[in-house]
């Protein structure tokens, strides 16, 4: 598609999908059509300014308005945002530097627990004085702190293990993530740091620093929708910052060094690239993104427990990066969005649909084989429960047929 007609077509499509999503708030398909508008916007050939304007219109105005009508849209969008941020972080490690990190979720967990412990009464268990929970105003301090803590743990883990060859490194990071999870799961004694498998709650939400502004503007947002909207914009800003940082890094000296290491470590070292320092930096940057997202996640969830930080999550994020294309920023975004939509919307929708069929007791007639009552469909047969199968298939199929991903990185002049 190209030229002016394409833009008008796109505008028409955006309007149509918005109306659809607005008037059929229950329909998964309508929301999917809306999401597809963003994808089309990426592909359509149009002046940059128009594209940015349309993208901002979609993300900053239309989506929140739709979200006011149906909170589910916002919830899905926040989840997508979280995974996009995680995928962008992992993309640096796996895509740019070429190190397979199977324990990425550990850094996410560290960030989440950082805020969870101090942003809830939990910290009173081991720090006397009854200072906790900290007031919500500390949220942003912890957001910054988590970046430092994430980078530090990333570097600490990286320091000893980065000399390992690729597949060993993968296993060690996996082991590290399991150690972190086991610690979180068991550190409710001798001192109760994490409250073990029971998890931590209630975790403070971020401060409503803009409340006076809203009042001044005369906007009334119902309390039930205020926080979802707030988190939506928060994650949007966060993803925006991450994208900018990643892009700047990618086209900097550091980014070129990373890619040189990925392509051929020995050659890079011979050309004077400080291999270990650059690898550490990549590890730390990825970890700090994940850790910051973790803080946001725990504030959004109010309750967290170790179940949210399993190996499954690491693989999910990896599948997103692989699907989109290792080393590609649009790829990571597309992959994260696609997999999250698949998980939250398509598989769940399919499960609901099958449940409906089951209850309707309709008969499925197969020629020559007789008929089959759908009410006999086993209750265990629920697509939403088989996300591992989906992730697994994505990984295998992509590796065999398109290892570079759906949106592989474009060759820029500095390569």
């Amino acid at each position, binding site marked *: 598609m190209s030229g002016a007609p394409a833009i008008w077509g796109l505008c028409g499509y955006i309007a149509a999908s918005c109306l659809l999503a607005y008037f059929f708030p229950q329909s998964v398909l309508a929301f999917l059509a809306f999401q597809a508008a963003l994808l089309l916007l990426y592909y359509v050939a149009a002046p940059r300014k128009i594209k940015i304007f349309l993208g901002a219109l979609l993300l900053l105005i239309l989506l929140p308005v739709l979200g006011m009508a149906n909170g589910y849209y916002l919830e899905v969008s926040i989840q997508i945002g979280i995974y996009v941020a995680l995928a962008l972080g992992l993309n640096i490690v796996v895509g740019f530097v*070429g190190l*397979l990190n*199977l324990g990425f979720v550990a850094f996410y967990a560290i960030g989440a627990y950082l805020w969870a412990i101090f942003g809830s009464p939990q910290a009173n268990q081991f720090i006397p004085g009854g200072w906790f929970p900290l007031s919500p105003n500390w949220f942003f301090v912890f957001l910054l702190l988590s970046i430092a803590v994430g980078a530090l743990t990333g570097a600490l883990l990286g320091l*000893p*293990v980065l000399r*390992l*060859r*690729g*597949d*060993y490194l*993968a*296993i*060690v990071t*996996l*082991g*590290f993530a*399991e*150690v972190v999870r*086991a*610690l979180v*799961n*068991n550190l409710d*004694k*001798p001192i109760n740091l994490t409250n073990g498998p029971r998890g931590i709650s209630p975790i403070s939400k971020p401060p409503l620093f803009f409340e006076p502004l809203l009042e001044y503007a005369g906007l009334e947002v119902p309390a039930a929708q205020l926080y979802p909207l707030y988190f939506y914009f928060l994650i949007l800003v966060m993803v925006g910052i991450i994208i900018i940082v990643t892009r700047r890094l990618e086209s900097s000296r550091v980014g070129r060094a990373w890619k040189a290491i990925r392509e*051929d*470590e*020995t050659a890079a070292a011979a050309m004077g690239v400080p291999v270990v320092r650059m690898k550490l930096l990549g590890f730390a940057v990825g970890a700090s993104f994940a850790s910051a997202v973790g803080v946001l996640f725990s504030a959004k969830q109010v309750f967290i427990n170790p179940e949210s930080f399993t*190996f499954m999550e690491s*693989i999910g994020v*990896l*599948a997103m990066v*692989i699907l989109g294309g290792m080393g590609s920023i649009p790829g990571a975004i597309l992959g994260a969005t696609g997999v999250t939509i698949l998980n939250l919307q398509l598989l769940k929708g399919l499960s609901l649909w099958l449940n409906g069929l089951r209850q309707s007791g309709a008969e499925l007639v197969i020629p020559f084989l007789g008929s089959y009552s759908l009410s006999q469909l*086993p209750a*265990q*047969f629920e697509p939403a*429960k*088989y*996300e*591992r*199968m989906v*992730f*697994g*298939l*994505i*990984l*295998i199929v992509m*590796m*065999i047929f398109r*290892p570079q991903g759906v949106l592989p990185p474009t060759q820029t002049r500095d390569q």
Partner: protein
Amino acid sequence: LELALEILPQVLVDGIVLGFMYALIALGYTMVYGVLEFINFAHSEIFVLGAFVGVEVMLLLESAGLLGALHPAVVLLLVICTGMMLSGLAAVALERIAYRPVLGGPRLVALISAIGASFFLQDALRLFESLWRNTFYLNYPTFEAFERTVPLGQNLIVPIKSLIVTGTALATLAGLYLFVHRTKLGIAIRAVAQDPDTASLMGVPVKRVIALTFFVGGALGGLAGVLFGIHYSLVNPYSGFIPGMKAFTAAVLGGIGNIPGAMLGGMMLGLLEAFAASYLSLMTDGAFGAEYKDVVAFLVLILILIFRPRGLLGETVRESKA
């Protein structure tokens, strides 16, 4: 300390049983790594498959009313043979479908494909059992002959199950040793592990030898699965992950690619874990208990890789092809 001495024999027995289990699984990792230099991440699912085949055979025998009628040794043999056979075949199919198309490319590509295969198999097994039995948590049927115990001393009562595990594993390991060192096929496997290109020039059908390696490794994994099931009774499609990781640790501990190393590593890790499970809480006055045994195993893995990446018996590892 008295208490510590009192439970020592029991801890040793537990450790040996675990050790044999890990050794059997570790062999699958190590043999495949030997010929392909690639971590077969889905090996833990081959292991679980063995456990499920075992439970299915026993349940089928039970529903046919044969479980009590047949001699226990026959039942055992039947379960083990089907488990090994199917696991071995599954491993070969896995290699053919998910690995062979990607093995020419970069290493990470193959590893990611293996992780995908692992996840896929977990849920495929779950789906199958859900449709077939309506649940995917399966219990081995109680089989009276396996439940007996043998008193071997004052503080030591050994269940027959443990003896079965130990005996079968020992026999298999001896058989494997003979196979690898005394038969033509075994020599072919070692030749490919040493240098596939030269082996190919000498007339060794490399691809077929790789498939054979997957079969043998898979069969050993399947055997471990059956023994795991008999020993611990309860299996589910996800129960392979932790044993798989530990067995991999064992393989690395012994020196990956090295067959005696895998046996040694498995045994050491099994004993270490049994000791950690029993003595950690004694040593720290209950502050840290048996729940840290997994942490101990993973820490061991990380430490070995940092300080002795080639493992205890590690020989020369070929330069990475990168």
